[in-house]
């Protein structure tokens, strides 16, 4: 079978990409579209480093087949803050010291962004439940909790 053409909008920008059926959305976004902020940590949907929002839903893009993103609206870490300066979540992560090696952080921030869209003022327990799909090996999470709580406050949730 020849490659199949998909159209998708990533962070507001349209793309047409010819993909193989076994390519993941993560592969297309990183290697074809060239947005390398999203990371592959496990390739099996267990670490969350590749988290993206597809048609309003948080997913692990490493196991999301690219063909299934045909016609989709996709938000990646590059679509949060970015040229307009840091998003309050990003600002809070910087100021609270919630970033160490940084490899999990794009996915973590996309997941936190998704959480705060749905629950603008989460409790600590809600944060701990909502971010369980995003592993971080460096920080021990405490400063991430603080950053999300602070971001919620900054965003006036």
């Amino acid at each position: 079978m020849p490659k199949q053409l998909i159209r998708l909008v990533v962070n507001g920008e349209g793309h047409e990409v010819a993909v193989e059926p076994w390519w993941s959305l993560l592969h297309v976004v990183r290697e074809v579209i060239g947005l390398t902020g999203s990371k592959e940590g496990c390739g099996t949907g267990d670490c969350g480093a590749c988290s993206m929002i597809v048609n309003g839903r948080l997913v692990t893009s490493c196991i999301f087949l690219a063909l299934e993103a045909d016609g989709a609206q996709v938000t990646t870490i590059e679509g949060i803050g970015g040229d307009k300066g840091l998003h309050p979540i990003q600002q809070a992560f910087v100021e609270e010291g919630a970033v160490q090696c940084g490899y999990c952080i794009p996915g973590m921030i996309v997941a936190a962004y998704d959480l705060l869209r749905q629950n603008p003022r989460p409790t600590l327990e809600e944060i701990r439940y909502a971010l369980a799909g995003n592993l971080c090996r460096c920080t021990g999470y405490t400063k991430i909790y603080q950053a999300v709580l602070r971001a919620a406050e900054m965003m006036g949730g």
Partner: protein
Amino acid sequence: MRPFSYFIPASLQEALAIFQREGEGGRPIAGGTDLVVQLKEGGHKFPYPRYLVSVRRLPELRRLEWVEGEGLRLGAAVTMAEIEASPIVRERYLALAEGARVVGSRQTANMATVGGNLCNAAPSADTAPPLLVLGAKARILGPRGERLLPLEEFFLGPGRTVLEHGEVLVEVLLPPPLPRSASAYRRHTPRQCMDIAVVGVAAFLALDEAGEKIAEARIALGAVAPTPIRAHRAEALLVGRPASPEVLGEAALMAREEASPISDVRGSAQFRRYLVGVMTEAVLEEALSRARGR
């Protein structure tokens, strides 16, 4: 990953036609949270599909609706997140909401579907025990027409179901809940979440009009046999008897006998058997207290 072809049909009819046209070696795919990982990691032991047919957006598989007098029609491509968020599921089929809630992460819940959870046929599937106790029937469409099966008959073994080539699980049908009835599901995992059930237990209890005796009982166990199973002998111990802690305890002991777990990396057989006992008791108590609250 090995190469494969991928089809995205616009309708269920088209999906069935693709299976007819392409022949053996095809599989339906929905959320992909199990199947894509198997494609990546499965190596040579995994029966690698030649082609996949995407069913995740087919309207017939996306239904989640209450039909008065019939019960709940739950499309196979409804996601865990959608099930958990559904007020009707939470109100009338709480065990199912509890099962859907614990599947993976929020990311997983947004992708994984109930049909995928059942068709992947892992003994540990978290929606299987709840659906078994809720009296689910599986509606299957294929080249020879429609089949409607009790869910108990759907599973054949780890990774194996009754689905034949070209057949698609379309939806799951749940009867309306009985009066004074309730259900519950719990599982045991080492981590608080993001884990696979070491043991999963679902129970459904209906009380008699006086609210004293158990009128109907169903218990289902996950991850303790080659498929999710009903604990029929334990259920039989409950029906017609007073809803007392002693009776529930007896049933739990019986459920323990009905389990036939294996030892694997997630737990030993004796650990699993032990857990069936303590967890069945706890889940029955939970279901009972919910039923009494109705």
